[in-house]
């Protein structure tokens, strides 16, 4: 079997490991437009912050490709895909055939089509090179504007702030991290960053990038405010990098549409990771879930299915573990429910800067926020994934020591004795 994988991040690596779990012999060729050995994209902000040295950036040990017998063609851009010919055309014009193809091209930064975006000092914040380029230009006190207070924007802000930059964040929504926090939690995060000198301009956006002799020197916001800055980081968001699928029969919506086996509508072609649009069983619709754990799982399942196995990926949901300076938080699923079918359980402790919220629907947990109280949060994730009816122990969910002891004994034993429960208990 001849496998080709386009993409060298979590999804691509997941696919390699998925394939090898069934097919030790098949030929795997992996393409990446970046020169690097597989590295972890989320760690780029850790790198900028200085918490992670170069060698710790890599997602797998150096001998990974060799050990799993993968031909890794790094720094090679794939230009186009011909589904009829079942072949790829590289930038160099070389044609590469495939029997199974995985599109794991990840996401690309959203850059507003406004003049000045190509000025010197304007950076996106998605790839390792973006950060390396930005890092070279930093000096203490450099005034930087970050567009977007999402996960990427704030992680960039945290790193820049730590590196001595004076940062100002411009965000369209009424709060930071609007995708994963509600107003209550977001307020606490904003406050903790503000204490470190970060200025926030919410419900606002950049109307015009001001430049002078090819270099950025400031931005004019929608409400007219002008912010002088030497550096501008565009972190509005990420959209699926579906370029290869454009113009082919491969169905694409926002991301490349895949079924529960991560297969596209074209036989033999699969997609996984930030580029794919799978099913979100909480939102009960197809959605792009650009988070690493989801990418790896989709990649692994895709690999298994490409190698002839059948592993259905029931679909995931958004989940994040992120922290700014010493304020960690874990969130998952629907955190800002709109309709009445949802119920919210909230516990806050302003003094300790703790904010806990659990969102219920039909007796099941469909989302939660655990700000500055992240210990054992995975128990809630587990309950969400298995869609467990939590009504019997609902009143304990927000307790600090919430755990297995609050579950009914049968459920607890069934879960904790899993290793031996297969055999009937004597």
């Amino acid at each position, binding site marked *: 079997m001849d496998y080709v994988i386009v993409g060298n991040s979590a999804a691509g690596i997941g696919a390699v490991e998925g394939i090898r779990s069934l097919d030790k012999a098949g030929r795997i060729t992996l393409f990446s437009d970046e020169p690097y050995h597989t590295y972890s994209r989320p760690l780029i902000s850790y790198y900028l912050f200085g918490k992670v040295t170069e060698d710790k950036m890599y997602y797998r040990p150096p001998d990974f490709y060799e050990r799993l017998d993968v031909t890794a063609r790094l720094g090679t851009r794939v230009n186009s895909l011909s589904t009829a010919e079942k072949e790829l055309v590289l930038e160099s014009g070389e044609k590469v055939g495939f029997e199974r193809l995985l599109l794991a091209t990840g996401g690309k930064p959203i850059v507003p089509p406004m003049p000045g975006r190509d000025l010197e000092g304007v950076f996106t914040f998605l790839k390792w090179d973006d950060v390396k380029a930005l890092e070279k230009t930093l000096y203490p006190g450099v005034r930087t504007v970050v567009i977007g207070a999402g996960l990427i924007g704030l992680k960039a802000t945290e790193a820049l702030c730590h590196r001595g930059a004076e940062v100002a964040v411009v965000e369209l929504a009424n709060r930071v991290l609007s995708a994963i926090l509600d107003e209550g939690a977001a307020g606490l995060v904003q406050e903790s960053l503000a204490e470190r000198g970060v200025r926030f301009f919410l419900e606002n956006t950049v109307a015009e990038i001001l430049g002078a002799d090819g270099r950025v020197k400031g931005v004019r916001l929608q409400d007219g405010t002008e912010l002088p800055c030497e550096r501008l980081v565009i972190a509005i968001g990420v959209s699926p990098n579906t370029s290869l699928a454009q113009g082919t029969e491969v169905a694409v919506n926002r991301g490349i549409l895949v079924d529960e086996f991560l297969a596209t509508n074209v036989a033999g072609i699969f997609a996984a990771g930030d580029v794919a649009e799978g099913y979100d069983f909480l939102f009960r619709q197809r959605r792009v879930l650009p988070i690493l754990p989801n990418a790896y799982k989709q990649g692994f399942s895709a690999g298994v299915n490409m190698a002839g196995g059948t592993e259905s990926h029931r679909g995931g949901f958004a989940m994040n573990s992120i922290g700014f300076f010493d304020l960690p938080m874990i969130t998952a699923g629907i955190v800002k429910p709109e309709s009445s079918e949802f119920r919210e359980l909230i516990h806050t402790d302003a003094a300790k800067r703790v904010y806990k919220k659990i969102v219920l629907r039909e007796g099941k947990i469909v989302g939660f926020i655990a700000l500055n109280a992240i210990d054992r949060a995975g128990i809630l994730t587990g309950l969400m994934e298995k869609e467990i009816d939590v009504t019997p122990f609902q009143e304990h969910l927000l307790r600090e020591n919430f755990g297995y002891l609050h579950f009914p004994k049968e459920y607890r034993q069934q879960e904790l004795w899993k*290793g031996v429960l297969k055999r009937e208990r004597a």
Partner: protein
Amino acid sequence: MKRVYAREEFCAGCKLCEVHCAVAHSEYPDDIIKAFLKQKVKPTPRVLVEENQPISFALQCRHCDDAPCTKACISGAMQKDPLTGVVINDESRCVGCWTCILVCPFGAVQRDAGGHKVASKCDLCSTNGGLPVCVQNCPNDALVFTDELWGR
């Protein structure tokens, strides 16, 4: 593979398992007093006793067959040893992003209170070999280390 199972009907809630686990993973694995009194930061146990008497039991990593934490780890530090099945966190590569805590359905991964901000979890005492110290030191045989049912 052999795992540690808690028989809650025999757990006295004394938490000696936590004490000895912390010591075994401290700088003084053979000196409980130094481990607690000399080590700058109190050693962290990798087993956690959930207690709300009369219910109590010890809970540690289940070394799951398809471990969600190894799939979610953004640095590749969390790996399941293909031979022994033990899920081990390579603390030199862990960046303390807590994604493993996000996905572990048992809440068996903790933030290392030792201050160097890495994920701390049970390694089945595979480094010092033999019987996990929590099992060895349970005064009431509430913890059993087995791969098939024992004494039910």
